[in-house]
C-alpha cells in the first residue's frame, strides 16, 4: 500500500505536523498515525464529504470580479493543523497582553497622547495616518476599549518562533469560517475528535454576546444588539448573517436604522421605531456616517457618530480604532507594551523597516529583492511586493511607488513561514499557513482556542488570502495531559 505521506518533503520551512519526512511531532502523532491507517479511497471519500457539507451548509464567500459578484464555496482542507495546548497558553497570554496595550494606545491617541509626548513615537505618524479620526478625540468608550474584536495574524518562521504579522482592528473577518471548519471536521473525522483532546471553540458566540452586552451604554436593562452589514454583496455577508444568528442579534443594513433628534439610534420594525444599544458594525469607518465621513455613503447611518459621541449607543469596534491597525504603528507595539504595561512583549513582532525613516528607507531600497514590502493601510494581501518572488521589472516599479510615498510603506524580511500537510490530488504536500486567532475585549478579555488557519493552496505560494486562492484548515489546540 502506497502511503499518502509518500515523498513528503518538509521543504525549507518549519512543518507544524512533521519534524522530518518520516517523523511526526508529538502533538500530531496520533493524527498522523490515523491518517496513515486510512486508504487513499477513504481519504478521498472524506474530502468529498467535506466539500458536499460546505455546499449544503452554504458556507460561501463572495469574490468581486468584472463579470459580477460570484458566490464561491469556502475552500477547505480536511487535514487539521495542530498546536500543543502548552504552547497555546503562552500565545494566548501574549495576545491578551498585546490587545490590552493596543487599546491603551488608542485611548491615549484620542486622549492626552502621553506616548507621543514621552517621545516614544513621532507625532506625524498619527497625524498622517489615514485611520486617525479627529472626530474621535476626547471620546471615552466603555472600559476604555476601542478595539473590541481583533483578529491578529500569526506566522511561524523557520526558527519555530511565532511572530505577530499584523493586528486587524477594523472589521476583521473569518471567525465564522473557524467555527464552521470545526463543524465540518466533526462530520469528517468524528472518531478522531473523540480520541484526541482538542479544545472546543464553539463558545465564541457566547463570549461575543457577553462582550457586546458589557459595552452597552445602559447596564441595567436587557440590551438590544444589532449586526450592521453593508449587505448581500459584501464578501463577508455570510459571516455577518451567521454571527447575527448565533448571538440572536438583528442583522441590519444602513437604511434599517435612523438617528432621531434625541441622538439615539432606532431600527425600523413592524412595531415602529425600536431603540438599539449596541451595534457590532461590519462597515468601515469611511462609510459609517455620511454626516461625518464620506458624504456619498449609502451603507451607513446619518447621525450615527452623534449618537455614539453622546454615549447613547456602543459601536464595536469603536470608530477610529483603526489608527492602531497601520503597519507603521505596528512597529511600535513592543514599545507600547513596555510603556503602558511595564512588561516585556510575549509575542515578538516581525522586524520592520519604516520607509518614513530615511536610514531605513535607504536599506529597504538597497535590499528590495529580499524583502516583503507592504502598504501601511491595505488589507487582503493587495498592493504588496514579495521581493524574492518578483521579477526585476516589478521590483523597479515598486521602487518608484515607495519613493513617491514612503510614509505609506513598510518592509520586512521574507519569512519562511511554516507549512502543514495539505491534501493535494490525493497526496499530502506541505503548504504554507498562517493563523488568525480572534480576541474579544470588553469588560473581560477572551481569546479563541486556536483560530482560523489559512493555507496557501498553490505550491510554494505565501499568499493565504481567500480572495487570492487561499483556503483554510481546522485548528486543533491539543491537550497532551500533564500541566
Amino acid at each position, binding site marked *: 500500500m502506497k502511503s499518502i505521506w509518500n515523498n513528503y518533503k518538509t521543504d525549507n520551512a518549519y512543518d507544524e505536523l512533521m519534524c522530518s519526512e518520516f517523523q511526526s511531532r508529538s502533538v500530531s502523532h496520533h493524527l498522523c498515525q490515523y491518517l496513515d491507517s486510512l486508504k487513499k479511497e477513504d481519504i478521498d471519500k472524506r474530502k468529498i464529504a467535506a466539500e458536499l457539507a460546505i455546499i*449544503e451548509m*452554504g458556507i460561501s464567500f463572495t469574490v468581486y470580479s468584472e463579470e459580477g459578484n460570484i458566490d464561491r464555496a469556502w475552500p477547505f482542507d480536511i487535514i487539521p493543523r495542530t498546536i500543543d495546548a502548552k504552547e497555546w497558553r503562552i500565545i494566548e497570554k501574549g495576545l491578551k497582553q498585546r490587545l490590552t496595550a493596543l487599546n491603551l494606545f488608542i485611548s491615549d491617541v484620542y486622549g492626552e497622547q502621553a506616548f507621543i509626548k514621552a517621545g516614544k513615537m513621532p507625532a506625524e505618524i498619527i497625524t498622517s495616518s489615514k485611520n486617525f479620526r479627529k472626530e474621535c478625540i476626547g471620546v471615552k468608550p466603555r472600559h476604555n476599549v476601542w478595539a473590541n474584536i481583533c483578529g491578529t495574524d500569526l506566522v511561524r518562521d523557520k526558527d519555530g518562533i511565532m511572530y505577530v504579522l499584523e493586528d486587524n482592528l477594523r472589521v476583521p473577518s473569518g471567525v465564522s469560517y473557524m467555527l464552521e471548519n470545526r463543524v465540518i471536521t466533526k462530520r469528517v473525522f468524528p472518531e478522531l475528535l473523540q480520541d484526541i483532546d482538542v479544545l472546543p471553540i464553539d463558545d465564541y458566540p457566547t463570549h461575543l454576546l457577553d462582550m457586546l452586552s458589557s459595552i452597552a451604554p445602559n447596564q441595567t436593562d436587557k440590551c438590544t444588539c444589532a449586526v450592521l452589514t453593508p449587505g448581500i454583496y459584501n464578501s463577508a455577508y455570510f459571516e455577518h*448573517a451567521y454571527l*447575527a*444568528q448565533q448571538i440572536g442579534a438583528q442583522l441590519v*443594513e444602513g437604511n*434599517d436604522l435612523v438617528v432621531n433628534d434625541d441622538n439615539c439610534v432606532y431600527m425600523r420594525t413592524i412595531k*415602529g421605531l425600536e431603540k438599539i444599544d449596541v451595534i457590532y458594525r461590519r462597515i468601515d469607518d469611511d462609510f459609517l456616517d455620511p454626516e461625518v465621513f464620506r458624504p456619498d455613503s449609502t451603507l451607513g447611518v446619518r447621525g450615527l457618530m452623534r449618537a455614539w459621541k453622546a454615549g447613547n449607543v456602543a459601536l464595536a469596534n469603536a470608530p477610529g480604532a483603526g489608527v492602531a491597525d497601520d503597519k507603521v504603528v505596528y512597529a511600535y507595539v513592543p514599545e507600547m507594551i513596555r510603556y503602558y504595561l511595564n512588561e516585556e512583549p510575549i509575542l515578538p513582532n516581525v522586524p520592520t523597516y519604516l520607509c518614513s525613516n530615511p536610514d531605513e528607507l535607504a536599506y529597504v531600497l538597497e535590499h528590495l529583492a529580499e524583502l516583503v514590502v507592504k502598504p501601511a493601510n491595505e488589507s487582503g494581501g493587495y498592493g504588496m511586493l514579495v521581493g524574492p518572488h518578483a521579477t526585476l521589472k516589478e521590483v523597479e516599479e515598486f521602487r518608484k511607488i515607495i519613493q513617491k510615498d514612503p510614509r505609506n510603506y513598510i518592509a520586512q524580511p521574507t519569512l519562511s513561514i511554516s507549512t502543514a500537510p495539505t491534501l493535494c490530488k490525493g497526496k499530502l504536500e506541505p503548504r504554507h499557513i498562517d493563523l488568525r486567532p480572534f480576541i474579544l475585549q470588553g469588560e473581560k478579555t477572551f481569546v479563541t482556542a486556536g483560530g482560523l488557519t489559512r493555507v496557501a493552496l498553490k505550491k510554494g505560494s505565501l499568499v493565504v488570502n481567500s480572495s487570492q486562492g487561499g483556503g483554510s484548515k481546522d485548528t486543533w489546540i491539543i491537550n497532551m495531559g500533564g500541566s
Partner: protein
Amino acid sequence: MLSRSAERLYWLARYLERTENIARLVNVHMNLLMDLPKGVEMGWRQLILINASQEEFAQKYTIANERNITRFLLADNTYSGSLISSLSAARENIRTTRELLPDEAWEQVNEMYLFAKKNLDTVSNRRQRVLFLNEILRSCQRFTGLLSGYMSHNHPYRFIRLGRSIERADMTSRILDLASLLLSESRSEEVRQYEAILWMNILKALNALLMYRQQMHSRINGDDVLNFLLQDEDLPSSVGCCISVLLDCINKLPNNDDLPQTLIELQAYVKAIDTRQTTQKQLRGILDNLQNKLGDFHNKVADNWFLSV
C-alpha cells in the same frame, strides 16, 4: 422585528408555497392526462392558463407541447413564475433572514435549490420529472414541518404564515377558476363524461382528496368540491381556512389598523358564495373578484409593515 425582515420572510413563504404549488400542479396534470382518453380537448396549455402567462409563453415558444410547457413552468429561469425562479427567489430571501430561523431552515432551502439546479435538465424526461417533482415536494414539506415543529410561533413565524396563506388562497382560487372554465357549458359531452376524474385531480392538486372523502362521505361532484375548497373551515388549502389563518396572524401582529376588518369582510364574502345557485360564468366572476381582493389585502400588509423604500 425589522420591517425588512418581515418583508423577506413573507416573500420567502410565498415563493416556497409557489414552488410547491407548481410542482404539485405539474405532477397532478401528468397523472390526469394519463387517465383521460386520447383526443379529449385538454392538454398542457391549461397549466399556462392557471398562471395567466399565455403571453409570456407565446413570446418564447411556438408550440404548446408537453416538453415546452414543462420546461417553461419548471426550468425557465427567465420566466419569473417558474419553479426554479420561485425557488431562487425563496433562497435569496432566506439567505438574508437566516438569523431569524432555526439553523436547518437555511440548509433545507439551500439543498433544495442546489438539487433543483443540478437536475433541471432531467425534467424533459417524464420518469425523471416525476422523481424531480417528488423530491421538491418532499423538501417543501420538510421545511414547513421544521418551522412548525421548531420555530417559536412569534412575529417572524406569523409573517411566514401570512405569506404562505395568501399564496395558497390565491392558488386554490386559480385552480377552481380553471375548473369552472373547463366545465363551462361550451364544452363537449366528452369532457363532461370525465368530470369526476377532473374534480378528483383538482382535489389532488391541492393535496385534499383524502380529506374530502373523510369529510363529505359522498361521491365526487363539482358542487361539493367547490364548496369544500372554498369554504371548509378545517382544510388548510381551502380559501376559507386560509383567510382564518390570515386573521389569526393579523390579530396578533402590532399596528394592525383596519386589516382585521378587511379580512372579516373577505370571510363573509367567501361564506356567502352559494355554488348551487351560480352559473359557471358567475362563479368565474366571483373567483376573479376574490383574487383581486387578496391582491388588495397584500398591498395593505405591505403598506402597514414593510420597509417603504
